[in-house]
């Protein structure tokens, strides 16, 4: 697990780590793009919406691979979150909103995206993609 500060720069740091991880696993470009996008969007959400840029709180990233499935765990230390509360960005009334599409991208490019509220606070997003 790597702990990253709650700054926008952590998005690039996490993406670089993910790129190295995927490269070491011998995955192709399309797979790498999906992992990259999912990591970027989830870290950005954790920094912005989870930890609300509080530099006293870290974002934790864990990358693992088992039997061809890459799993990404991203944890923030914020107040909790329910994905059902996020408006559908493809709903006509939300199409012109400036934000709210990150989760849609995560769901579109990964096979599994799940959230849980951690017992000791914060949200864990767990994403998985098979090669």
């Amino acid at each position: 697990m790597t702990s990253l500060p709650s700054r926008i720069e952590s998005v690039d740091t996490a993406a670089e780590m993910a790129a190295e991880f995927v490269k070491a696993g011998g995955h192709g470009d399309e797979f790498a793009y999906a992992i990259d996008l999912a990591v970027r969007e989830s870290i950005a959400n954790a920094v912005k919406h989870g930890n609300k840029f509080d530099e006293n709180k870290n974002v934790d990233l864990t990358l693992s691979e088992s039997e061809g499935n890459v799993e990404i765990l991203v944890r923030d230390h914020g107040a909790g979150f329910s994905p059902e509360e996020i408006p559908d960005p493809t709903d006509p009334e939300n199409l012109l909103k400036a934000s709210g599409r990150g989760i849609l991208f995560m769901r579109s490019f990964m096979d599994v995206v799940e959230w849980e509220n951690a017992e000791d606070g914060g949200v864990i997003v767990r994403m998985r993609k098979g090669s």
Partner: protein
Amino acid sequence: MSDITISERQAGDVTILDLSGKVTIGEGSVALRNAIRKLLGDGKNKIVLNLGNVGYIDSSGIGELVSSFTAVKKEGGTLKLLHLTQKIQDLLAITKLLTVFDTFDDEASALSSFD
């Protein structure tokens, strides 16, 4: 160093912004916002965004395209997109934003669409 460069060209009363690099959370999105704001401040509201050399865009960058579109429209102008890469096209399809933007594969068609 910024991950994005934006250069401006004029074709009649249409302004073309050639974007190159990444339009992502942070600098890339802010640079695009500032460029659009400057054009509108100069009274230029017929705008084409050339995305052919944008290698990467995230949800923040897509959001900035939408914000740019609405900001230009609010000033009575139009913003159109040129040379979508396959990745950008896919993301605009996922978000159903292909129904919002006018998109073009060649510059001449984009420019003549303002006539």
